[in-house]
């Protein structure tokens, strides 16, 4: 079994293929039996330097289901950071109170830095546009659960592929599993060159498309992301392309039976609500899987499993 005890979880790139599979197996165990008091008597410091209600609730649910307690803050306005305390000092202090730290912070690289300052393991709950490894883990869990495997899948990534942190991490994490990628995005929000180079170096096929079309009939997974107006240098360009990246129920007609639609949430309008009732809509179950993935990660770093 991979040795993860007392290790911080900062970046999905820190996980080997074996470690990923081990965490997914653990998450499966927690899904089958979600109330296990493994964290009884432990305190988790939950430090959200920027608000993220969804991620925070998911972590707090995971901790509560494990029988642990939570201390912390849910945005920087209620933390000492507003008084000018450095990140280093906050971490030095909290790591003397808590047995584990879960941290969300707007600065990129803050999680790695916190892990170096902390006396206890740090789980990164998002550091700016950089990493959000527990999101990636729940995405992988959702893919494996719906497809029965991670290998040899046709993965469609749709929307903002330039700034989308989740799609970048997912791409890296899946690279060990022989995927074929399809990128569907507006010209301005295409997958950055560094990721395409990475795929080329690893012999992983990818195709780029300008809009959602029948091509999705080949998909095993369609991973939707938000296309945000403020990402466009020209607002007119946004108006012109925005409807090309909206998934509607009638577009699912020719898709494979095993195909599932994923989305990191929150959704705005990129998935029409008429998709929600389709058996192929998986995004709410995906969010639920986040609790099990986080329970698995917490248990692994605390050496409880």
């Amino acid at each position: 079994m991979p040795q993860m005890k007392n290790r911080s979880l900062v970046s999905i790139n820190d996980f080997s293929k074996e470690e990923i599979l081990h965490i997914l197996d653990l998450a499966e165990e927690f899904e089958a039996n979600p109330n296990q008091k493994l964290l009884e008597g432990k305190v988790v410091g939950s430090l959200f330097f920027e608000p993220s209600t969804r991620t925070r609730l998911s972590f707090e649910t995971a901790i509560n289901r494990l029988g642990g307690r939570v201390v912390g803050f849910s945005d920087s306005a209620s933390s000492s950071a507003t008084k000018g305390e450095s990140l280093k000092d906050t971490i030095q202090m909290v790591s003397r109170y808590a047995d584990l730290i879960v941290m969300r912070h707007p600065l990129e690289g803050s999680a790695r830095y916190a892990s170096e300052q902390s006396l206890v393991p740090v789980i990164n709950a998002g550091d700016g546009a950089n990493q959000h490894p527990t999101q990636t883990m729940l995405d992988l869990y959702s893919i494996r659960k719906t497809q029965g495997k991670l290998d040899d899948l046709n993965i469609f990534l749709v929307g903002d592929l330039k700034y989308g942190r989740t799609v970048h991490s997912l791409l890296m994490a899946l690279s060990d599993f022989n995927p074929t990628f399809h990128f569907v995005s507006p010209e301005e929000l295409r997958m950055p060159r560094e990721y395409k180079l990475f795929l080329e170096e690893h012999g992983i096929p990818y195709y780029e498309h300008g809009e959602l079309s029948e091509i999705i009939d080949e998909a095993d997974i369609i991973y939707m992301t938000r296309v945000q107006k403020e990402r466009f240098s020209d607002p007119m360009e946004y108006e012109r392309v925005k409807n090309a990246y909206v998934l509607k129920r009638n577009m699912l007609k020719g898709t494979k039976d095993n195909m599932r639609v994923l989305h990191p949430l929150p959704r705005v309008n990129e998935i029409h609500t008429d998709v929600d009732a389709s058996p192929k809509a998986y995004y709410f179950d995906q969010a639920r899987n986040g609790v099990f993935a986080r329970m698995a990660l917490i248990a692994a770093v605390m050496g409880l499993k």
Partner: protein
Amino acid sequence: MANSKELKVSAIENGTVIDHIPSENLFKVITILGLDKISTQITFGANLDSKKQGRKAIIKVSEVFFQDHEINKISLVAPHARLNVIKNFEVVEKSDVTIPDTIVGIVKCFNPKCVTNNEAVTTHFSVINKKEVALRCHYCEKITTQEELRFEAS
């Protein structure tokens, strides 16, 4: 020819001569090596003609000898620098600088949202390309390229 281009800075008895520094980076080299904080004699010249590079600078520092890991810190600002170790007015050793595999401090991360640009954190990079310099930030994981290289003020 050679005579007229002879460098007019005094010879040293014991110490180190650092040659082939790009003129525009002379003061960066001085800062990186901490030569502005030592008490032994230093002479330097800039805007000297060079066959290898347009304009070069040279530093002669008495009674100071560098270890590889110290001198390699200047490799990003003076990739072609050459060291001559002087003992009793004789060159006893010549060496070139090499770009190390990791760089701690010296360079700034190009990413304005990186923790190293917002908290008191020493930068730390792994060198992923030595020819066309590319440095991956240990913290934000973004890549700083040759064109984006900026040096920390010290």
